[in-house]
Every structure is written in structure tokens, then in C-alpha cells.
């Protein structure tokens, strides 16, 4: 795969994560508005959103990759 196609693929992956985060945010807003005492689902959504950001935007797996492949 050439450099441009790889970049485009990563751009698309970033967009997919963004849409997932947006859907989850709207979901938690609605849960917060409808059900007052539902702290557990809201915390679950927050954990899921954080996991997506840490894995796909912060690239945590890079930390555990070797020196050679960590730049991918």
C-alpha cells in the first residue's frame, strides 16, 4: 500500500472513531436527560469512549511496540 492510500485509510479510521464517539455522547446526553439515577450506564459509556480515544487517537499500542514498528 502506498503512502497516500495508507494515510487516507487512517483518516477514514479516525472519522469512524469520531462518529462512534459522537453517537455515544448523544446517547449519554439522552440517558442523562431521561433517567436521573442511571449513573452506571453513563459511567460505562464514559469508559467506552475513553477506551476508544486511548486506543485509536492516543495510540497506546505504540508504547508496547518495538522501536522498529512503533513509528507505523
Amino acid at each position: 500500500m502506498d503512502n497516500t492510500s495508507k494515510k487516507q485509510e487512517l483518516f477514514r479510521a479516525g472519522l469512524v472513531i469520531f462518529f462512534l464517539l459522537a453517537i455515544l455522547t448523544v446517547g449519554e446526553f439522552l440517558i442523562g436527560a431521561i433517567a436521573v439515577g442511571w449513573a452506571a450506564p453513563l459511567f460505562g459509556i464514559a469508559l467506552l469512549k475513553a477506551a476508544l480515544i486511548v486506543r485509536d487517537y492516543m495510540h497506546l499500542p505504540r508504547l508496547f511496540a518495538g522501536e522498529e514498528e512503533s513509528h507505523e
Partner: protein
Amino acid sequence: MTTETNLAASYRFRTHTNRIGLWLFILSDAFVFGGLLVARFYLYPGQRPELDQMVGLLVTAILLVSSFFMNRAETAMAHGDQKNFLRGTLITIVLGIIFLVGVVGVEWRIAHFRPWDSAMGSLFYVMTGFHAFHVLTGVIFLGIIYRNGRRGLYSAERHFPVEAAAVYWHFVDVVWVFFYPALYLMGRVI
């Protein structure tokens, strides 16, 4: 091995070491925010302050969009795309400033309580203030990489400062991911 290969290997090694340092810093910072979150739920379980829901949702959305553009900027730089890097970084900076105005300039102004009114008041202003301070330092950090990027100091092979700024910015977003429901959504309004 040529000198160029040696230099590239040395840069990769330093990047790997710097990355460990960066994540240790992020982890230590996360404990401070975690402490604030624990204090909020310990003092006011099942309750929350009265805040403007639309402002909360709007600033959350702004930070989310900024993370998307920061990821785009970092990906662009990792592939030597200077133009998209600069554009993405600039948009992130602007969105970061809008977030700051939304929290400090709007939410703080319209809130029905002050830091000295109650423990919840103190917690709200400390949590949002400390987070806003991180956003501010993130904006400054992004400003520095934007200026350096314009000078052509980064390349596809050498751009660790861009990665560090991006990771820091996303961390600030992760913190808000927990602060937003804790302050705006969980519990009954006091």
C-alpha cells in the same frame, strides 16, 4: 552501518524512550483528575450542580471535534503531509480556545453558585478550572508545534513533538469524557 542509518536508529530509540516518559507523565496527571472525580462522588453521591445542559453538550462536542482534527493532523505529519498537518493543528487550536471561552467565559458566568458557596461549588470550579488550565497549556503546546511545523522542522520520520502534543490533547479530551457526565448528567440537581 552508515552515519545516516545510525542517526535514524538513534532517533527511533530516543522516540521510544520519550514515549515512555510521556505516558508516565500522563498517568501521573490522570491521578490528580481521578482524585477530583472521587472527591465529587464521595461528597455528593446521587447529586449534581444545576448547570446549563446545552453549554455542557456544546463544549463536549467542541472538544470531541478538536480531537478528530488533532488525530488528522498527526496522521498527516506521520505521512509527510505538511498542509493537512498545519490545517488540522490550526483548527484544533481554534476549537480549544472556543472550549475555554465556553467553560470559563460562559459556564462560569451563568452558573448559579460560586466556589465559596458550598463544597460542590468548590469542586465544580476546581474540576473545570484545572481542566481548563490543561486545555490552555495544550493550546500553547499546539501553537508551538504549529509554528515549528510552518518552519518545516518536522518530517514523516521525525515528528515526536507532534505525537506528544496530540497525545496530550487527547488526554485532555479523555478527562472531559469523565468530567462531563460527572458534572452535568449524573444524579439529581441540588
